[in-house]
């Protein structure tokens, strides 16, 4: 500590917010939806909070021919439109926009990377970015390797400052393709320079799981097979695929949600405490947990994984068409819009505790949560006067969205004579207990990447462990002919998912 304070005598960790070092962020796919809706508003918000260094620059790259001014105007419109919970400040935009520039180029053309290199040299002169560059690939996943190779070909993967590359999921479409992608990426960038973004991990409430588990002394002793009966992780969408049928048809719920977001959430819920809150220590524990997931044999898949696809139904008072009626969807599509899986973790802490994960489109409500069900009290001493209330198990609900927070369900005596018990809920509401605006996941993750903190990013061994866990399910489902649709829009999924839990003596919670 003494050494640190001598090296940075002006730092004040108690009061200063973390600030990004000088750098240029180069966004490939700068004219795309993600840049407009998420990346640029997040960068603007970081500027609004004074988190960006004076020497900060954004370079947009895409195929569309545009001048710097045209690109700035487009980005200004996007920031105005998609900025959440924040005012738009014209003066701030003026100063922020001075760091924005644009290069038109096709990633299929090797010369375009040379143009970017020349442009970055100018940016370094005018903005003093210390030659630090973050490449953000907001493009089709099929272009990731090609862009990384193009950057390396132009010598952009090395410099006087640091170089990092951010890629969005999916990281491959199965285990083999994930490995193939990695083998091409690692020829261009070191593993510690590759940032695989999973925006779920950037959510405040997902990060709060770690604070809840490891910042408090009272929960961790209960956090094991002795006290926990089972865990349910739900990520439900009330809407269907909404015009993205063609894309979704290639992905499906298992690939789109469970393989990445929800297995990462499960790892955060179930991992061992890290020895320190440092990037590799935390990711090592997550990776260990993912590797401890029991791999299903083909004959076990039918009992432990359920695929679903929604048919016509109702969302509230509105009629909703089925997945097969979506534009761009093949009439005999076998794509799963719902997936539920029972995972078991083979380690001492969790042996025999089922982790049920489900996700789906066109379910009754939009909700993401983790429900931890504890074992019931060993002796029902109030049985006669409770009409079974005391056999209601304690539940801890970690709500990720929409109303982030934590609830603990327990039984309490009803006021009055006798010993009548009833279940009650003790709530902690994250949003209302802290009136502070929570940063968006992209603000958090962008600042992390610029600052070189990969704690909330996925490492290749975690990617491979996740694919390994779901690959037998994908392989088995690929051999099946499903009788889709098998659940109506606006319901909680196919009955087979209920039967899967019933085999364990459990039922799905209705969030």
């Amino acid at each position, binding site marked *: 500590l003494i050494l640190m304070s001598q090296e*940075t005598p002006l730092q004040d960790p108690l009061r200063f*917010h973390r*600030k990004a070092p000088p750098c240029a962020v180069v966004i490939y796919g700068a004219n795309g939806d993600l840049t407009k809706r998420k990346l640029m508003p997040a960068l603007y918000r970081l500027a*609004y909070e004074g988190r960006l260094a004076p020497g900060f620059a954004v370079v947009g790259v895409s195929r569309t021919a545009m001048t710097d001014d045209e690109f700035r105007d487009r980005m200004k419109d996007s920031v105005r439109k998609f900025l959440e919970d924040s005012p738009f400040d014209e003066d701030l935009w003026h100063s922020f926009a001075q760091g924005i520039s644009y290069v038109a180029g096709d990633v299929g053309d090797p010369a375009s990377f040379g143009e970017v290199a020349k442009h970055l040299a100018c940016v370094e002169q*005018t903005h*003093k970015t210390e030659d630090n560059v973050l490449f953000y690939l907001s493009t089709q996943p099929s272009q990731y390797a090609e862009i990384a190779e193009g950057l390396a070909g132009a010598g952009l993967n090395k410099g006087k400052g640091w170089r990092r590359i951010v890629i969005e999921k999916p990281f491959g479409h199965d285990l083999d393709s994930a490995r193939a992608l990695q083998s091409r990426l690692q020829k261009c960038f070191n593993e510690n320079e590759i940032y695989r973004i999973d925006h779920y991990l950037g959510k405040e409430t997902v990060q709060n799981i770690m604070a809840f588990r490891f910042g408090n002394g009272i929960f961790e002793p209960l956090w094991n097979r002795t006290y926990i009966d089972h865990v349910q992780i739900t990520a439900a969408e009330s809407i269907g695929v909404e015009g993205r049928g063609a894309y979704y048809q290639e992905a499906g719920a298992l690939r789109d949600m469970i393989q990445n977001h929800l297995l990462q959430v499960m790892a955060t819920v179930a991992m061992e405490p890290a020895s320190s809150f440092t990037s590799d220590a935390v990711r090592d524990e997550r990776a260990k947990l993912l590797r401890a997931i029991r791999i299903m044999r083909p004959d076990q898949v039918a009992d432990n994984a359920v695929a679903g696809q929604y048919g016509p139904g109702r969302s509230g008072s509105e009629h909703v068409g089925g997945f097969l009626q979506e534009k761009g969807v093949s009439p005999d599509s076998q794509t799963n819009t719902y997936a539920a899986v029972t995972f078991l973790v083979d380690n001492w802490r969790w042996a025999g505790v089922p982790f049920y994960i489900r996700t789906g489109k066109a379910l009754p409500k939009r909700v993401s949560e983790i429900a931890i069900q504890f074992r019931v009290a060993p002796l029902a001493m109030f049985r006669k006067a409770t009409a079974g209330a005391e056999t209601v198990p304690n539940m801890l609900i970690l709500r990720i969205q929409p109303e982030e927070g934590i609830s603990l369900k327990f039984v309490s005596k009803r006021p009055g004579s006798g010993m009548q018990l009833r279940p009650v809920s003790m*709530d902690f509401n994250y949003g*209302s207990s802290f009136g502070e605006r929570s940063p968006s996941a992209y603000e958090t993750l962008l600042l992390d990447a610029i600052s070189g903190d990969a704690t909330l990013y996925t490492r290749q061994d975690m990617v491979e462990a996740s694919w390994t866990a779901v690959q037998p399910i994908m392989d088995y489902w690929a051999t099946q002919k499903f009788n889709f649709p098998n659940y109506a829009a606006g319901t909680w999924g196919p009955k087979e998912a209920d039967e899967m839990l019933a085999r364990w003596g459990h039922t799905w919670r209705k969030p």
Partner: protein
Amino acid sequence: MPTAEAIKPDKILKELGELWTNIGKPESSEEESLDGGVLRACAMTLISFVDDEEDAAALSETLASLMKEHPSRAVVVRVKEGEDALSARVFAQCWMPFGHRRQICCEQVEITASIDRLADVAAIVGPLAVPDLPRVILLRSARVVRAGAIRKILPLGDKIVVDSARPGAPGFGELGGLLDAGHIAGDLAWTRITETRSLLAQVLEGSKSATISVEYDGKEAGPETRYLHAWLESSLPDTRVTLKGSGSAGPGKPCTVRVDTDLTVQLTKGCAEIERGDVRQWANLPVGTDEELLNAELSIVVHDRIFERVLNQITA
């Protein structure tokens, strides 16, 4: 209005309990079925000493905005001149967050007391503090400072927050006295320059400077300027740090920091212009409102060693 004898902490606590029972009752059967009601939140006891003349509505607004980030049991002591007076009332401040169906409420106790009853106030306020949570005193009453009654109220708090830039507020001498007595102290004048310090820390990182000049508008350096100067001086012992006023009229706030001959940081409202050689850059410099500064200060209920070092440098 109750007499002094009638004001007992137990009675106030009982009234607070009744208040929660009443506001927790659903107003309709529909509300009951929605599992609505209120959410009670408390992270600290915030004890504010203000002069009776201070705008009650403005103070209430400030406290309400603090409650969202620092839900607390708020005790407001309004200090009056003149005749013997001591009274108390309790009420709740509630708000319904957008999109939620449950109100969040914080409790408030308002005590009005003449300056010579501050000893009684201490006896009342002490037991009202929420156990096991930090107790923070916000000292805005110039009257309390003038009357030298500050020592009576200090034992009530874990931390005392002042704004030395406010007229009649405790100065560096009194703040130094708080530190010497082992208290945790906070000064909003110090909090006000956090963003400026953070920016300077970033632009000066890794560089070795021979001289730094802190320039201010006005003839006399205000508390923010003096803090900035003392911070640089105490952090960079090998650098000569000087103070320079513009000589014209002004509030004495820092306006320019010159580092050797090649770096100038101009501080304007909301923005800083950084000139280094022929490169000119801008950085957003958020200006904190009083509520935002208080929010920041209430988040720190431990000794702030850097602030204490800087204050000691000024008072030495």
